[in-house]
């Protein structure tokens, strides 16, 4: 077991040892004097800690506050301090400074790094910055700065390592961070260390580690397991590897699962999507997890693997209760298969939160209908998040819809039934009453927004 971990920070190779593998990258940077990277929240929500990394998935912006050191072995890490070359500001720094993009300046290194990383993905526009909060500027000068075109230099001075960015194991005392390179390896580690926790993007695990203090002595990373990172198109549908990140899905789905792709755009923000995985979102089994309703509406199936073999369950059978699933200890989500629809379907997905971007859902809904030529509903899947202990389908109303004409009256009647179907809780994201209203209203919105489509 490796007792040290190698990273490159702002171009210099560094061997770290004796620092717990669950120490967050941000804490390591700051403790080692690289204080240009700031902490605003330590839970992935503000972006002040954004750094650019190059690891298995190319250059990306990540929230260093929730990335454990163990997860960045052999990564190249660039921080705001590292961008200046020969005393000259990087173009994104120059643009931000000139536009008045910094007031107190505390958020600024994070914005700089989000903009810097976006150069590599070629992504443009506000989407790059939705995960960076600024309390001072109102964002207008930052948006202006983001518009000034810039691209990585031809001979990139920032990412220079020629080493393959293969994650390596790292241990300190009895704390281990394993980075297996095969599915079998991962499963064996899990069976060898019964208390071990799988970690994929760590966007849930990292937040938890910060919130409760250190807890998991053994983490098994799935980030480098090739079998979990495939995207395969078969006759039956699209099989999505569990450890694919949401950014990868955005880039690779290419319009094949529109519902999912729409939801991905309003899922957290770029830094989170760069790390968060599909399987992680399902395994966490949050009642407000956003991908479950979408995948329920798609009729997705989940493939679970363990040393004992594999099995496939319908996603609608996957969740068993509040934050519980059918997963057994030692079992991993290998993939999620989205079946190919036999006929075109009428679909839409909605997410309502207190804030338009980067918010957890109050209610999320995904609808998928199949209509016969005469506008009779022949199949229906209506799924919701935020209205019950688990993501759920509105089975009774689906039944009600089948055989009925897709008219305003049907939609209104279905909406009425939907409003009475669940008994959601009141919490700080919304009252039970509001949630019940949304369950029905979103369906009516669906009809309203898509009725023209059908009539045509």
């Amino acid at each position, binding site marked *: 077991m490796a007792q040290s971990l190698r990273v490159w920070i702002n171009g210099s190779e560094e061997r770290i040892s004796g620092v717990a593998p669950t120490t967050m990258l941000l804490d390591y940077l700051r403790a080692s004097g690289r*204080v240009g990277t700031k902490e605003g929240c330590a839970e992935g929500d503000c972006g002040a800690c954004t750094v650019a990394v190059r690891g298995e998935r190319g250059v990306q912006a990540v929230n260093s506050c929730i990335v454990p050191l163990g997860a960045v072995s052999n990564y190249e890490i660039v921080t705001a301090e590292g961008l200046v070359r020969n005393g000259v500001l990087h173009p994104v720094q120059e643009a931000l*400074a000139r536009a008045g993009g910094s007031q107190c300046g*505390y958020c600024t290194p994070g914005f700089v790094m989000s903009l810097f990383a976006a150069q590599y993905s070629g992504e443009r526009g506000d989407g790059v910055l939705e995960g960076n909060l600024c309390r*001072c*500027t*109102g964002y207008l000068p930052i948006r202006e700065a983001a518009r000034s075109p810039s691209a990585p230099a031809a001979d990139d001075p920032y990412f220079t390592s020629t080493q393959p960015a293969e994650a390596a194991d790292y241990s300190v005392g009895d704390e281990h961070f394993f980075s297996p390179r095969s599915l079998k390896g991962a499963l064996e580690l899990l069976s060898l260390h019964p208390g071990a926790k799988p970690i994929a993007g760590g966007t849930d695990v990292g937040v938890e580690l910060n919130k409760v203090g250190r807890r998991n002595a053994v983490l098994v990373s799935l980030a480098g397991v090739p079998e979990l990172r495939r995207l395969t198109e078969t006759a039956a549908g699209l099989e999505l590897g569990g450890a694919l990140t949401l950014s990868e899905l955005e880039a690779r789905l290419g319009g094949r699962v529109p519902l999912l792709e729409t939801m991905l755009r309003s899922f957290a923000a770029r830094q989170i999507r760069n790390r968060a995985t599909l399987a992680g979102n399902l395994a966490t089994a949050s009642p407000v997890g956003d991908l479950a309703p979408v995948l329920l509406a798609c009729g997705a199936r989940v493939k679970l693997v363990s040393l004992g073999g594999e099995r496939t369950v319908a996603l609608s059978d996957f969740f068993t209760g509040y934050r519980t699933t059918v997963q057994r200890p030692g079992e991993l989500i290998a993939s999620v298969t989205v079946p190919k629809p036999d006929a075109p379907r009428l679909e839409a997905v909605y997410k309502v939160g207190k804030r338009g971007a980067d918010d957890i859902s109050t209610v999320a809904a995904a609808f998928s209908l199949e209509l016969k030529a005469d506008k009779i509903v022949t199949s229906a899947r209506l799924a919701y998040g935020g209205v019950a202990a688990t993501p759920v389908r509105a089975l009774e109303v689906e039944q009600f819809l089948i055989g009925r004409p897709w008219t305003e009256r049907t939609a209104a009647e279905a909406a009425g039934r939907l409003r009475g179907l669940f008994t959601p809780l009141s919490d700080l994201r919304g009252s039970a009453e509001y949630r019940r209203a949304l369950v029905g209203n*979103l369906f009516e919105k669906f009809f309203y927004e898509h009725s023209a489509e059908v009539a045509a």
Partner: protein
Amino acid sequence: MSAGKPLPHESAAAHVQGTARYTDDQPRFAGMLSAWPVLAPYAHARITGLDTAPALTVPGVVSVLDYRDVPGENDSSAHKGDETLLPETHVMFHKQAVVWILAESDAAARTGAALVQISYEPLTPILSVEEAIARGSFHAAPQTLTRGDPEGAMNEAAYRLSGELFVGGQDHFYLETHVSWAVPEPDGSVHITSSTQHPSETQGVVANVLGVPAHQVTVTCLRMGGAFGGKESQAAPYAALAALAARKTGRPVRVRLRREHDMVLTGKRHPFWGCYEVGFSSEGLLGAVRLELYSDGGFSSDLSMPVMSRALFHADNAYFVPHLHVSGRVCKTHKVSQTAFRGFGGPQGMVFCEEIMDRVARHLGLAPEGVRARNFYRGNGETATTHYGQEIIDNRLGRVWHDVLKASDFAERKADVAAFNAGHPHTKRGLAVTPVKFGVSFNNTPMNQAGALVLIYLDGSVGLNHGGTEMGQGLYTKMLQVASSALGVPLAQFRTLPTATDKVPNTSPTAASSGADLNGQAVRSACETLKARLAGVAAKLLGLSAPEDLVFEGGVVYCRFQPSLRVLFIDVVRQAYLAQVPLFATGFYRTPNLHFNAETGKGRPFHYFAYGAAVSEVEVDGFTGEFRLRRVDIVEDAGASLNPLVDKGQIEGGFVQGMGWLTMEETLWDASGRFVTNAPSVYKIPTIADVPEDFNVTLLPRAAQEGVIYGSKAVGEPPLMLALSVREAIREAVSAFAPEVPRRVELALPATPEAILRAVDAVRTPTREPVPGD
């Protein structure tokens, strides 16, 4: 002259590189300790037992701090005596810190904290304004302001309406949380570096808690990663804890709040509840207003009383109310002590005022913008005099209003909105314009003073000290511009030294939008003193007899009437040294002619008023209640701006922050008094996606203000209240969902999607408003 130029923030290059140092970025001292709080699980309880010994068994834990460790006064309130720093007998709010663990690392301190045993006897807490009123739990006697005969005028009014409104709090969510470092010096003194808007008060509280004279305590503020009022009074407790810990252990100590601690331990904007009655004419002219305000002050008084005063001073916003009675009372509840937040009660006062304006307009079926304009302060004398007797000398309401209506194409767009609404049953747009008139000066008259200390070194470089702190508002930038302009020396020759109590003593907080006004005058006065001395030296060098004819500009001193007679500033400086002329000077400023009589509620509390107006357009989704801000136009009176780039930044940032408060930032406490919106995952401030592309800010042209530094005006707080236009635009959109023009649109605050949907549903199924005159 650099004053008036749109220069970037003086630290912009350091900000973008991550090299700008904040308190917690300083190099760690050897042996420095970290602190972790032990938080009470009750909103109100008696402490019946305390055992900290188990914490000391944790490796790395060095010491603990509790009430027994306070050698001086166990109070962090700056002499009000109502804010226990380390509770001995009672817990006053949920998650109050009872004990702090000091350890070699955060992790060890945290582990230790979990082992401290405290037993409590829970008591019944008071958790809302309603409960406080019912139980008579207040911090002080009511404050009132009265003009004319509200009673009589109300009875005579053609129309009368009454109502009530609750407006919630707001977390500052400065990106940098509270932090203080304390370093004990061998002579027994202590040096504090603190993220504080008020180094002098922080120094005073620390000295008081330690029981030492103030000269034993130096407080430095390097810069803050945002403050917004949240670090005016609230920094002191953490500085005091760091100092106590340093004193107890003899080691340097850092007290840095994690976000989750900052959000539960520190005060927020005051929630307000109030009820009103308004009497008005058929044209919508206000006749009489009676307004009763109650704020939720939390467990200690902190700044709640002056916050309430400012709410009362701004209950008129921009409108002449011939007969007005407004009273305010601060409720004492078992919550964190609420505090200053950009606007300092002004926004809350104005929310009520604009609520009333909207009620009046809708009740009469008149356009709200027409009713607003009709009621503006106007002319001279009585109709241009506020309810506290201050005559408005240079009324610019008409100008900002006219300009913003024009810049926004208001009339044309109102028609467009109506057309859009007619064609869209499930989405509606709304367009609204609101004004702001904001009084500038500390309410507490003596606080309107400032000091500076300017040091010229022999190489001609200049060190600038003043009492103001930098929190992102660009004060340091503006002060450099003032100093450079006043001394006629290029900006590059200056350095601002960190604000510190051993340079300029007894300063006021950097607050009330007055930082540049007050410190700017103090800096200029110091520069003028130096210039006068140097002019004497330069005159001798040039063989001139009239030093007053000399001009200082661009590092050169020359004769006004014969510019070829010139000498370099640096040569004058060297000569001054040789001639034994002092090269440093203090500057001092007090705002003239301010007075206010609290007994009569009359006076002239403000040096001047800042004006602005904003037009917002929104689109509301009738299925979900979500809204999107489509366009904003702002005209702000920043006087002859010291720095238009900085000022535009203040306006945009203030507006967006105000919009957050009014539409998405919800502060919620549960039934046990726990603050539940305690993390950014559940407390949402605006992101870039909430700010429209179409956002236009114009500074009112030809607006130099007499008697203020270089004709500039305060711009820190006033723009926040321009966001009221967003709320009113939402209300307009909501009204468009009604089958017929509604006589009333109730919209709860913050106007979250849930609140908006409730409002939409209410107007869709209208209940009849009582007939006028009922």
